[in-house]
């Protein structure tokens, strides 16, 4: 194939792929969460860092006992992350500008409206339940840990100490306990002595947060973290200090994680279905063209050959005819000559005889 032709076809194919992507992206709607889904509102102005939530979480989820007991508040001296044995951790933030004492913040799965972990999981081990929780099914998990890399809040943890059946571990918002009726609110919420955690419908939590802003405008920043961040989360935060000061990322934007990859992933079916057809077609067309050209060439060659052969034959015939004529005339000439010679000889013999007689 000519280089130029190839590039032209490649361009056409790319346009086709891009068109497909655009259509897909426009087709995505802004998802605002399942109607009536539940969440938790965390109020940083109320949290006293008592770790009751951690203890309750450990208890209701049957997690292994920690090295230091839950009433040992010295563990707050270090910043901690969630791990396979702790679905939730409270961190203390000291010496914040404009604040007299420390501020505490509980960390756990934010239960995104459109979870990054679920979009990264190729076996669909994660599910966003209509009740609000993001749940995990260990029976299908292949242990790739893409979820851990995908999560912008660095929440899912892995049971590295489990050689045979390691699981990804993270807060379930006590989904199994609540669905089975063992609990009415998540373990941490029920244990919080200051109601720094409130469980309820996400829409109600947003309303409560706004009510608190209106009632105490000097106490709060007028922002609900998680209302829009990463497309919205079911776990919401309100605070009197900037959220970056209590370990919450402010650079995440409002786009849900799956939207970042949906364009590229939507192009996959286009490429998988359209490209083979397109390219085969192009190949067939190109093939046919070449075939026709070859046939035409063959024909032309044949014609030329025939023509040349004819000409050659004519020449030959002519030469043959000429040769025949020449031969004939030569024979005639020779015959005539022989006859003349014979006549001459006869005449000479007759003379001799006459002489001899």
């Amino acid at each position, binding site marked *: 194939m000519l280089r130029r032709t190839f590039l032209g076809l490649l361009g056409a194919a790319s346009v086709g792929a891009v068109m497909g992507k655009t259509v897909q992206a426009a087709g995505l709607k802004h998802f605002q969460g399942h109607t009536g889904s539940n969440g938790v*509102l965390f109020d940083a102005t*109320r949290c*006293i*860092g*008592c770790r*009751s939530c951690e*203890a*309750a979480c*450990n*208890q209701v989820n049957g997690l292994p*006992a920690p090295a230091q*007991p*839950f*009433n040992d508040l010295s563990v707050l001296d270090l910043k901690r992350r969630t791990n396979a044995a702790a679905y939730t951790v409270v961190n203390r933030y000291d010496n914040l500008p404009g604040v007299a*004492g420390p501020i505490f913040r509980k960390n756990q799965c934010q239960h995104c409206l459109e979870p990054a972990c679920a979009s990264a999981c190729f076996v669909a081990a994660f599910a966003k339940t209509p009740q609000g929780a993001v749940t995990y099914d260990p029976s299908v998990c292949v242990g790739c840990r893409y979820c851990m890399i995908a999560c912008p809040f660095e929440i899912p943890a892995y049971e590295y100490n489990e050689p045979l059946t390691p699981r990804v571990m993270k807060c379930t918002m006590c989904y199994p306990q609540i669905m089975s009726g063992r609990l*009415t*609110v998540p373990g941490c*919420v*029920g*244990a*919080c*002595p*200051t*109601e720094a*955690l*409130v*469980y*309820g*419908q996400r*829409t*109600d*939590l947003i*309303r*409560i947060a706004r*009510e608190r802003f*209106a*009632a*105490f*405008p*000097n*106490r709060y920043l007028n922002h609900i973290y998680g209302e829009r961040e990463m497309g919205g989360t079911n776990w919401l935060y309100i605070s009197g200090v900037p959220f970056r000061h209590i370990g919450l990322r402010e650079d995440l934007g409002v786009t849900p994680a799956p939207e970042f990859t949906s364009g590229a992933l939507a192009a996959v079916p286009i490429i998988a279905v359209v490209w083979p057809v397109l390219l085969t077609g192009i190949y067939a067309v190109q093939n046919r063209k070449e075939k026709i050209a070859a046939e035409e060439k063959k024909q032309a060659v044949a014609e030329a050959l025939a023509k040349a052969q004819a000409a050659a034959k004519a020449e030959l015939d002519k030469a043959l005819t000429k040769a025949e004529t020449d031969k004939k005339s030569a024979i005639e000439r020779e015959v005539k000559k022989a006859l003349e010679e014979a006549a001459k000889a006869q005449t000479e013999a007759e003379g001799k005889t006459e002489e001899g007689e």
Partner: protein
Amino acid sequence: MKKTRPMLRWAGFMVVCAIIAFYGVQAWGEKGLTATPGRPDQITINTLADFDRLEMPPVTYFHDKHTDALAKENKGCDTCHYVEDNAFSFAYLRRRDTRPEEIKNIYHSSCIGCHNDMIAAGKQSGPQDGFCRSCHNAEPPVNLARLDAGMDKVLHFRHLDSKNIAPAGKDMNNCSACHHQFDEAGQRLVYVKGQENSCRYCHLDQAQDGAISLQQASHQQCLNCHLTLARKGVDKPMPLSCRECHGAAAQMELAKKNKGIVAGLKGQEIPRLQRGQPDATLVMYNPQKAPGKSDKLVTMPPVPFNHAAHEKYNDSCRVCHHAAMDSCSSCHTLGGATEGGFVTFEQAMHRRTSQQSCIGCHAATQQARADCAGCHNSISQAQTPDLASCQQCHTPITGVVSSPQQKAAMAASLLENRRAAGTFPMNDIPDKVVIKGLSDQYKPVEMKHRKHVLDLMKGMENSHLAAHFHADPGTMCQGCHHNSPASKTPPACVSCHPKTQGVAAGAMEPSRPGLQAAYHGQCMSCHRDMGVKPAATSCNECHQPKQQKAALVR
């Protein structure tokens, strides 16, 4: 193998470059971040910027450094500043700004000339010819740490009381030495007794309407007076250098000294300023001032206002009279007007976010005083105040009051009738309240109820504000027993606060904390805001452990 080696070498080189760049950038950034100690005397000389675009960056100049250096040489301010009519011109070696070339020449020849002379004499000095960037430095070597200087009540009193300040004329007091206003007819500054204003009403941040800027005005007036007195040999501590007014150390020193001076005064109080202001008045919208409607305009009943007492509470008249020493209604009209920034009379008195409004200032006091903050920080600001709240200030009057004298007399009589803070008889106040909500895990909490009441009442003793607003016996109780009518027997907490914990009630329900959170929220936030013991974070001081293994402590 031979082929890969140059690649490896290049890769190594790139890595080294990247590391150098990374750490270089970090080091550079940190250099910018480290706080260099600031100086209050840093002046940026950019006079030529008024004429044209600058060819070189402005000059960073340290004034006190030069004053100190000249003092060592026994040279005074007149080395650099001309004296005219016993006052210094604060422009460098000139009386006024003329042409840019001339000004540039003055700076270059005189600054560098002096530096040259000093160095020729074998002394340490500043940059010489050719060291352009030593003075014209785009980035000043240290931070500017210049604090605003100004008069407060005590400093004002010290000036008023001073024997060294010369009044402007015969039979005049010290006020005339500084306070002035512009006389349009005579085109001069005159002193009018009883019309003293704040400097800042006319002298704004920038020169405006013929008045020089506040900076210029205060230097011309304050600093020149100090320098004159110093020349006369007055032996009193007067700030003469930049750091003595604008430096943090000097301001702390001054505050300490002022405190001592107040302590030495009769009654430990600054004498009241006399400007013809009333002791008390009625804050009301004068119906005559309402355009078009003479006497039929009905407004809220007037508020008796103790002007004399509020003078004591505040540091200067400017706190309330923020733009002019007039009555509030002269700018803040009933419907809002341009001169009042369209802030209506009602808003000027009630706007919570303004420090100049009655409610704004009272609310700020509630937050600032620990005695108040305990209860008041927990009171929602979203509620519309009830009628009783309005009636705390707005007092119906009978009869006609129009003249200032009538108003003052009426206000004084109303203020006299105001009651002190009060509560129920001691016997009616429960001594102890036992809270058993968490008695499955801890011993019941014994709350010393009567002690709480007495302590809170004690906190109000020295506050007229608190006394007036807590006169009804049930009011103080409402700090804790809130959202129900004031009563000797308020409903139990559990009447409103459910025992369910952490549940967001539905959209139609009011969102209120559960019982446990209500207790913790109320007790702990109050203890925190009032700074009282037990500290809000020590669980065991209220909840004594019942047994070794409580349910949640594993």
